[in-house]
């Protein structure tokens, strides 16, 4: 009788714990779905579109002639092909470093000064709105980063190197968390950024509105936070190391669908 009872409780407990585990991941998905209907990233998109067209800066010019890789002023589809090589600057650039170039050449801002500005302030805040608008124009498109130019291939190799480089007080690399399937931090499932679907899902979700900080984060700010969590110094805003990481993740995510600007917890 006693054994029977024990057996019965064991049978009862098993499905319960399975259900509890499932509801955690489901709960997060449900929470995201509820918030997605009113994703505040839309506010940033609207603000970014206005900023793109507004004449600003020392030269009092808009950004509408900015070449994001598909010709001057072409925004649609540009995001899913970045980072890429630009012949005018002679370097591979991601969306944010390219915007710095445009803001300097067209509007007369100092790219160096903006790169040094803390995230979320002054022109950095404007860049966050601009990346929301530009990425939003490519929503639902597939990532197709060019790898034809030698510089682009080089940046992929450098990005791979940076991704796997371990160091710092925790002896961490990006790959410690994002190099295998089914890893997580607390309750957050982590994407495997070395291949699809993880690379497409992970890379394709930023820029995103981060509910916990109430801000829209671009890829640069996201990478800064990765480095902070690894107790690493950030390589610097729009630095080649961060752009190389973008190339590595973006090329791995080829064919993945861009959901940016997405919504994160």
């Amino acid at each position, binding site marked *: 009788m006693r054994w029977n009872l024990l057996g019965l409780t064991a049978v009862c407990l098993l499905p319960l714990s399975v259900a509890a585990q499932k509801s955690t991941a489901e709960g997060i998905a449900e929470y995201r779905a509820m918030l997605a*209907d009113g994703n505040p990233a*839309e506010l940033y998109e*609207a603000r970014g579109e206005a900023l793109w067209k507004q004449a600003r800066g020392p030269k009092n010019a808009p950004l509408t002639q900015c070449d994001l890789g598909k010709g001057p002023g072409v925004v649609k589809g540009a995001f899913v092909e970045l980072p890429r090589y630009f012949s005018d600057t002679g370097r591979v650039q991601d969306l944010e470093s390219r915007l710095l170039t445009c803001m300097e050449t067209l509007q007369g801002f100092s790219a160096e000064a903006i790169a040094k500005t803390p995230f979320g302030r002054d022109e950095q805040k404007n860049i966050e709105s601009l990346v929301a608008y530009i990425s939003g124009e490519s929503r639902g498109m597939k990532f197709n980063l060019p790898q034809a130019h030698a510089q682009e291939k080089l940046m992929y190799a450098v990005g791979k190197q940076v991704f796997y480089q371990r160091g710092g007080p925790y002896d961490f690399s990006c790959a410690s968390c994002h190099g295998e399937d089914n890893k997580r931090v607390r309750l957050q499932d982590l994407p495997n950024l070395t291949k699809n679907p993880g690379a497409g899902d992970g890379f394709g979700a930023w820029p995103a509105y981060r509910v916990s900080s*109430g801000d829209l984060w671009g890829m640069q700010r996201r990478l800064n936070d990765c480095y902070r969590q690894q107790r690493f110094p950030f390589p610097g805003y729009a630095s080649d190391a961060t752009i190389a990481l973008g190339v590595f993740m973006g090329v791995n995510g080829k064919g993945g669908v861009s959901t940016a600007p997405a919504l994160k917890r």
Partner: protein
Amino acid sequence: MSDPMRIRAQAQGEKTTVRVLVSHEMESGQRKDAAGKTVPAWFIQNISATHNGKTVMNAQWGPAVSKNPFLQFAFKGGKAGDKVAVSWVDNKGDKRTDEAVIS
């Protein structure tokens, strides 16, 4: 100056559902900045909506409402093409009104 709201209004049968995304800091007055000084409270105190000039929703908000809040409500009546206007007033006296057409 405040950024515009995003308003979507949809009529379905007798009911019109309105979804509003408001751009506002909604500072609670409980937080401290890097220097340890209290960040002054700054939040929407009253938000209301009108349909063809008639008030259909009125709410008093406080500091517990999130930054960039999302508001959804429904009212009876309203046809495609009608206008819905949403206005808010915050504790600094700033106000903003935006309008949308029901689809």
